[in-house]
């Protein structure tokens, strides 16, 4: 049996991976998560907003982290659109993200029948660098003359309501870069508005000082944060099913655990077989010795 394990055809491993990935993704099998405190706080904050309020989100990220920020943005949008909250997106600090934002919103907006320009808008990149932090406290019209589709600023109704920090109920940055620190330092501290972040796994540890100081109302940490948020959406009957984040968290956990398990099993197998071989060899040597002596 041990020998069979060691000479396992790699195709079975591939098949196992396909099964382990496809089934949970199709059935949206969730990883049972208990929401961590930052995620719960973020959810609670958005839950207190009312229909007609607005949030701004900032994609401070690169396409490489799409796999993390797409689910994060999706859970936020589900929450917002189901409550009638309006959404405006930007990526002034990360030019590479220009192409990412609008399709992400479109996917969810279609499900809730929300219209571009009246319920949401995506503004894209503007080359102002860190100057946006102060500019946005006054009026975003100074930064953007048109949105990412080329529609003029004045023709977009949703923008007329939400023109500065104090107009919106939450500013959230989905960051793959080191921007949450800048946001807290240059924008939240001087202008005082509800601020939150969604970050990648390695960045989570850096956010706790801001959370503890109350500079962030909440945080979504990595794909796990998105999964927790999906759990909260389900629990509060906002969405009927879990999304891709919960499913991929489940998949990740299963794949990692099974991988570790088979690595350890294979090592045990090697150890046992080596011992057996050693014994066999000894036995054979003894037998040969006996046989030799017998001949003599």
């Amino acid at each position: 049996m041990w020998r069979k394990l060691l000479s396992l055809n790699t195709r079975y491993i591939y098949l196992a991976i396909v099964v382990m990935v496809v089934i949970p993704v199709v059935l949206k099998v969730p990883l049972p998560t208990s929401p961590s405190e930052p995620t719960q706080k973020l959810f609670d904050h958005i839950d207190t907003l009312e229909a007609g309020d607005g949030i701004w989100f900032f994609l401070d990220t690169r396409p490489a982290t799409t796999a993390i920020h797409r689910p994060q943005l999706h859970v936020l949008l589900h929450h917002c659109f189901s409550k009638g909250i309006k959404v405006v997106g930007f990526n002034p600090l990360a030019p590479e993200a220009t192409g990412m934002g609008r399709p992400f919103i479109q996917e969810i907006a279609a499900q809730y029948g929300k219209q571009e320009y009246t319920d949401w808008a995506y503004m894209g990149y503007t080359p102002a660098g860190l100057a946006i932090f102060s500019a946005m406290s006054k009026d975003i019209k100074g930064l953007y003359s048109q949105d990412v589709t080329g529609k003029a600023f004045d023709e977009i109704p949703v923008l007329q309501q939400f023109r500065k920090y104090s107009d919106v109920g939450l500013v959230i940055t989905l960051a793959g870069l080191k921007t949450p620190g800048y946001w807290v330092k240059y924008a939240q501290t001087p202008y005082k508005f509800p601020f939150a972040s969604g970050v990648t796994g390695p960045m989570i540890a850096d956010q706790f000082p801001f959370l503890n100081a109350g500079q962030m109302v909440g945080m979504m940490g990595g794909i796990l944060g998105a999964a927790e948020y999906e759990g909260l959406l389900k629990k509060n009957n906002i969405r009927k099913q879990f999304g891709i984040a919960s499913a991929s968290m489940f998949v990740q956990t299963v794949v990692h655990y099974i991988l570790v398990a088979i690595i350890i099993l294979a090592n045990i197998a090697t150890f046992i077989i080596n011992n057996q071989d050693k014994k066999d060899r000894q036995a054979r040597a003894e037998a040969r010795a006996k046989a030799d002596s017998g001949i003599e």
Partner: protein
Amino acid sequence: MEIVSLWVIAFFSLCIFSYLYRNNPFYKFAIHVILGLMVGYMFLQQVTIGLEQLVVSPILEELGRPSPDAPDILIQRVLPLLVASLIFTIFVPERRWLSRIPIGLLLGYGMGYMLTKSLEADVFKQLNATLTQSITAISGDSIFRSRWPAWGQFLPGLSALTVIGLTIFYRFRMQHPTIRTIIYIALSLFICSLADSIMILVGVLTVLSYFFFSFERRGLVEEVSRVGLVFMMVYFGAVFGNTVLTRIQIFIGQVDFLIFKWLGGTWQALFRG
């Protein structure tokens, strides 16, 4: 049109994935389609447009001006074109050696550029970073101590005791690998509980000494280079383990696309659209 593009993407993706079972005609077909496409793309991009923009267009433009700047255009356009076309002599067996001239120029350029750049960017910069870190933090920060304060208190003493104790023992059992290993671990615990920068310095020096070519690996050199190898193995293991997560996430994204966008989209188009 969107459905067509979904099907095209899905078809090629599935063709590629089918290689996991074994090499098969679908995979070969998909790969050769891409090969043909990309060779055509490279031909367009690099050869046709490159030649036109680098040579033909500037020459015609220069000649069209009132007073053509002939020497400049000869040195910048015509001469390099002649030299570069020497590469085609590989088709003429007797003159094949001429093709080495443009290749030699290319390689000379690359290596000359590399020499100063890698000295500046890799050697000097990395040595500088190591040294700066060590100097500023000889009594400095340790993740070990700062994040596990309780352990940090007695870890240095414990590991130092282990090292001293075992070293005395080691004198009598010189070749015992387990004891040597324990000494290594205790020693590294001791060092890493002092300061991260010292650990990094030790790591850099031992790994560098792993690559000494002109000493026989015996005695001290062997011990030191083995420590270096351990450092490298820690790095390789950590990098490998850390990559699994992101790679699987990409595959999940691909599955998500295939199931919900491709199948779901087709379903919608057929029965609801």
